[in-house]
């Protein structure tokens, strides 16, 4: 197996008495979709926050492309190539969809300290941004403020932003949430192709999507990974069935 893109070892994070992350180890390998599932409050989002840099873990290591990223803030991790989408969409609400993506394009170019040239006439920003919107199917909504997009469209926009960053790994936190069945299906198909660009760590409650997409699944319960394996292994794991799937199914 190739070197993992993202390598998490023995990560711990407590909030007071709550062990939100309790010794998690996890790999994300090139070309795979690694789904992270678990009941509400299992610590999935807390884990994503530590990987992306919003929270600092108490102990453990996170290596990305072979580099320990513990000391880097969120912006520096994003520049290295960690693209994320948020559980609750996080966009510049007043900016149009296009301008949200243009921001990612300029970030990737490292040109945010240019003070005079107008961005709206700058084809080196607008064209790549428009191309990303087209890829996620939002081109027709490019000029609407993010605040006026539907929930599902905002999810798509977040993914377009992550694409525009040229991310080397994607962290998607419940990208299907708030989408209708049609939208979920379309997004599942899209993510299926995306894995060849960069591997995806996917937190998702939509089990149809998880079973359709995941090469491997890790099950998180009370801050611990109780099982990691292929879809079939996880489906037939008695402990997983008891802790999680049994309740849900």
């Amino acid at each position: 197996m190739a070197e993992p893109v993202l390598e998490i070892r023995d990560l711990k994070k407590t909030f007071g008495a709550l062990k939100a992350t309790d010794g998690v180890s996890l790999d994300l390998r090139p070309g795979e979709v690694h789904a992270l599932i678990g009941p509400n409050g299992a610590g999935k989002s807390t884990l994503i926050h530590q990987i992306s840099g919003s929270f600092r873990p108490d102990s453990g290591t996170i290596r990305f492309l072979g580099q320990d990223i513990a000391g880097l803030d969120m912006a520096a991790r994003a520049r290295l190539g960690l693209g994320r989408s948020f559980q609750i969409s996080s966009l510049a609400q007043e900016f149009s969809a296009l301008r949200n993506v243009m921001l990612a394009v300029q970030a990737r170019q490292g040109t945010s300290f240019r003070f005079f040239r107008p961005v709206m006439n700058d084809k080196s920003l607008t064209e790549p941004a428009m191309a990303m919107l087209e890829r996620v199917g939002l081109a027709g909504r490019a000029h609407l403020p993010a605040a006026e997009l539907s929930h599902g469209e905002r999810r798509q926009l977040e993914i377009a932003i992550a694409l525009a960053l040229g991310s080397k790994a994607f962290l998607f936190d419940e990208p299907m949430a708030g989408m209708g069945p049609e939208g979920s299906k379309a997004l599942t198909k899209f993510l299926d192709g995306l894995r060849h660009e960069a591997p995806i760590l996917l937190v998702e409650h939509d089990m149809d999507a998880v079973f359709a997409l995941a090469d491997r699944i890790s099950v998180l319960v009370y801050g611990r990974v109780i099982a990691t394996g292929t879809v079939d292994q996880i489906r037939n794991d008695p402990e997983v069935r008891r802790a999680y799937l049994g309740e849900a199914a």
Partner: protein
Amino acid sequence: MTNAPLMTRETVINTLLALLLLAIPLGASAMGEPFYITLATRIAILALAAVGLNIALGLGGLVSFGHAAFFGLGGYAAGILATHAFDGVPLFAGIPGTASMPIIWLVAVVVCGLIALPIGAISLRTTGVYFIMITLAFAQMIYYFAVSWPAYGGEDGLSIYVRNEFPGVNTAQPLSYFLICYVVLMAALGLFWLLRGSRFGAALQAARQNATRLAAVGIAPFNVRLVAFAVSAMVTGLAGALFADLNKFVSPSMLSWHMSGELIVLIILGGKGRLFGPVAGAMLYVLIEYALGGITERWQFFLGLILLGVVLFARGGLLGLLAGKARHG
């Protein structure tokens, strides 16, 4: 990008405001009413100071309650350099004072930028109410320093006996001085317009709307805000230097928290983040001050009522009322 009309409603209103501000002193000059020229000059300078604050507050969402520090520092730069030039005493290490406005402006802008960097670097570690309070605290420190430093007049302030010079212009003539201030204001508005539309402006406005989003694309909000804070301070400092020359006087009151508050009020009245918000705000403010101030000493009570009305019913300020909601393309 989109097929927008050639002139938006906001552009028309901005043009009218710019022409109105120019027409007042020209008319006053023709009718031999120099008082109104001074009033218009005051509007132009206050608007300039608020254009500076509008970069931090309007674009960046940084509610600095300490911009009087930069307004006053600009004023003292003019006052101190002019005093040394007048007395023929060098500043220090044999460096002479100067009565040349371009040099004074340069000094004011550089000093404000250099002082804004450390103030910003510390203040920007906080947000919200704490940011407001810490910028206020820094401004008050500078205020009390000016009050207690007798070399340049302390509490009594510092007079500029002869207005400083500008190459080829008789600055003592009120209309000429107005035109200098007006041109500087227009240049600053041009700078604001360019900044707002640039890559830096995009990052700065994104920092206001959603700092987490900005960080998630790999742009550190702190750096963007710090540069904006410094540029903002520099423009406000330039206005301070012009204000000192208008009044031929600079005192600690230019540094006081009232002044910081006044600048915020101007922006809220006019419309924050709007290109001509500071101009509309300064016009309205000086008009209220002049019209109501003639009737009652308690004009600020009525200003308060108007402000309350704007905050409750017209969040976008005067420009929001006239030109509608701002659009970001």
